[in-house]
């Protein structure tokens, strides 16, 4: 890549809460941009993501690592916060512990502190975005998304949700690029909130990746219309009768495909299980059972005007 004369360093902090590291590994799988483009080289000429804290890959450990985090927090430069994982709140948050310089605290408390000082927040993955599998019924550790934690704490901060279990790496790097480049479009820094240049949907996701129904993009849509349904996994035909969640899942998986375009769920003969949606996995279970088109989950406003997703009230027969 061409070396720009002056390179702007964009500090970034990656905070991992109750997570499986799948989101980290997914980001390592990016083909264009690659992880090398993202953190070693310049993501775009003159723009470099300076990843100050990411505990799965950073060289330092213990206090040496925590000093970096404190420096990013106190440095006054601001930082892009990437949250990966959900925040446990049960038992005073003690199901998820976090190290902090000179103290031990909870992931919940630490996540809120870091979020409050961040200049932009990306919730990476379905757990950070909506609670995900860590918040699945009966939610043993009381996990909540970063948005929900901020709202409960009365902290107003915009959050960009990049869900997926895990997300396609392009969804993340594309969002980071938008945040980096978004502030430069109008000559002057047009806004203190870099997130407003990404158009988000009602559940906080960038429309450019999550704006269309998977069912409408699916190469097996013709089979659906022609009522050619697969009876078993791996059979040709639409996987709707095998529980495909494409009819309510919003993501561009069929166009983008995973792992450098090698494959994706439906192409591999497996129904979409709706991993980018609020309430995943509960709304998607049983994964291999057909859901009537009239039973699709829906979003409503609650009495306070907040947006609430209403799931079909079942997971099996419990």
């Amino acid at each position, binding site marked *: 890549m061409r070396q720009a004369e002056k390179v702007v360093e964009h500090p970034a902090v990656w905070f991992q809460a109750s997570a499986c590291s799948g989101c980290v590994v997914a980001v390592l799988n990016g083909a264009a941009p690659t992880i090398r483009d993202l953190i070693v080289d310049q993501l775009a000429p003159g723009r470099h993501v300076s990843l100050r804290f990411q505990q799965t890959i950073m060289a330092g*450990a213990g206090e040496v690592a925590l000093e970096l985090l404190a420096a990013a927090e106190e440095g006054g430069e601001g930082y892009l916060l990437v949250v990966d994982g959900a925040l446990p709140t049960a038992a005073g948050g003690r*199901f998820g512990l976090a190290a902090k310089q000179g103290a031990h605290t909870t992931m919940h408390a630490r996540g809120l502190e870091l979020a409050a000082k961040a200049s932009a927040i990306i919730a990476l993955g379905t757990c950070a975005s909506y609670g995900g599998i860590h918040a699945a019924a009966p*939610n043993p550790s009381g996990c909540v998304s970063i948005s929900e934690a901020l709202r409960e704490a009365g902290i107003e901060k915009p959050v960009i949700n990049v869900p997926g279990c895990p997300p396609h790496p392009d969804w993340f790097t594309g969002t980071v690029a938008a945040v980096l480049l978004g502030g430069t479009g109008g000559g002057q820094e047009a806004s203190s909130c870099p997130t407003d240049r990404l158009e988000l949907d009602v559940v906080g996701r960038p429309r450019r990746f999550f704006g269309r129904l998977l069912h409408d993009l699916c190469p097996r849509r013709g089979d659906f219309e022609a009522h050619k349904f697969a009876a078993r996994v791996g059979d040709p035909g639409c996987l709707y009768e095998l529980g495909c969640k494409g009819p309510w899942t919003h993501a561009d998986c069929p166009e983008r495909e*995973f*792992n450098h375009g090698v494959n994706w769920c439906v192409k*591999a003969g497996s129904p979409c299980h709706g991993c980018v949606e609020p309430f995943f996995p509960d709304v998607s279970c049983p994964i291999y059972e057909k859901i009537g088109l009239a039973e699709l989950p829906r979003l409503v406003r609650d009495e306070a005007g907040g947006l609430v997703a209403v799931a079909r009230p079942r997971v*099996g027969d419990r």
Partner: protein
Amino acid sequence: MAQTRTIAVDPITRIEGHLKVEVVLEGGEVKDARCSGQLFRGFELILAGRDPRDAVLLSQRVCGVCPIAHAVASALSLDAAFGIAGAIPHNGRVMRNLIFGANYLQSHILHFYHLAALDYVDVTAAADYDGPDDRLGSLRDFIARGQLAPFLPRYEGDYRLSKEANREAASHYLRALEARRLAHEMCAVFGGKMPHQVGIVVGGCTETVTADKVAAFLSLLAELRRFIENVWLPDILLVAEAYGDYFGIGAGVKRWLSYGGLELETEETDLLKRRRYFPAGRVEEDLRCQPVEADKIAEHLRYSWYEEATSGRPPAEAETTPAPDKASGYSWIKAPRYDGRPYEVGPLARTLVAYARGDAAVKADVDGLLGRVGLGGEALFSVLGRHAARAMEARRLAEAMEGWAMELRPGEACCEWRRPPESGSGVGLTEAPRGALGHWSEVQGGKLAHYQLVVPTTWNASPKDDRGQPGPIEQALIGAQVRDPENPFEVVRIVRSFDPCLACSVHLLTPRGRELGRCRVL
């Protein structure tokens, strides 16, 4: 009297998940060590009550680094519960092995280069590089911009490679990022996507076999084999040469256990008797192989943040209730023990078990390594022994996978697709990249009544047990020398040699009621 000092490394970075390690130093020697898992998730309770088929896709979400291991353990357990363990189609068995094997390669490469290597390799050697290697050019430009995170700061004081060797290894760090990405592309060929594949299901696999997929898989595999042979194994020797004392550091409990894994047949339904690529067994220092009996596994709870009512019982009988205020507790990880003893699991354990059982390829690798470094067998019980075992295992496995890919039969069935049975139970024992992994499932009324996991890092990173015996990582730390308490690089090198995966520390809660219906999302 020597001064006593306790140092805590929290967080231990460059591992999967959240781990804190405390060591008590006396005159520079570790006298005591405590490994503390920092997260409780309750995955097993989340699974209870669901359609059993969902467990394969959901339980793999325990871990984004080794999801395939969980998908396979879950599928093996449920194949048995569905009564079809002996009826998995040939293609389904082989495809599972290929997806699983590809993730082994990914996980092992990630571990050596991206989790462990920065303990030995000084990337700042690229600072004044002016040659043609574009990867080193990238690192040079990165360093020149002056913001050195995430590569610096770090524990200082013991980087021993020459400038040339550091440069070569630093370039390989970036090249390995590409190699591990290709390994995941291999997984995706038959598994749909990675991490969190969709191809492995109860009964077999969802993908179909066609010659073009086999060719794509083989092409990626060939690239990985070149990388392992020409880059990784030489780098292991490079590190071994400069850090030879680490063949004598971090031995641990000197008891190793492997459940065996990667199915070479499906007719035998007792997994501990089945013909598998990785053999099952237990060994101690004398390398005499002993059988594994599943009913000798028990979980101890005295030093974990759980109530102790079922401490010392087998996993299937364990009732685990969190007790975060428990005074004796210091970890969210339980302490599994075999016949009352701690066991190390992982690539070194698999290698020693296979060696003890007379596996010719393993013997050739191990004896070749020992000859090369001029050391006796006890050198394997060490930090470098673990790294070398992992790399040699990857080479052998990649070679075997080529043969397996050629066994696929285009056009034939890949899955014995069934609806859940009214009742049934099964045990899925396999080997994750990090070691022995078990999933226990019980189906009642067509739903999961009980689900339990005992995972590799629970063995390796376990706290002390009810008899006060430290876990394998704790034991490996005890006796180690720490030169500079401000830079305890010895501690992190020992811990990382086990490739801990903390996400896997998952536990059962006593089921209570459940809530579902509304949740604020924005």
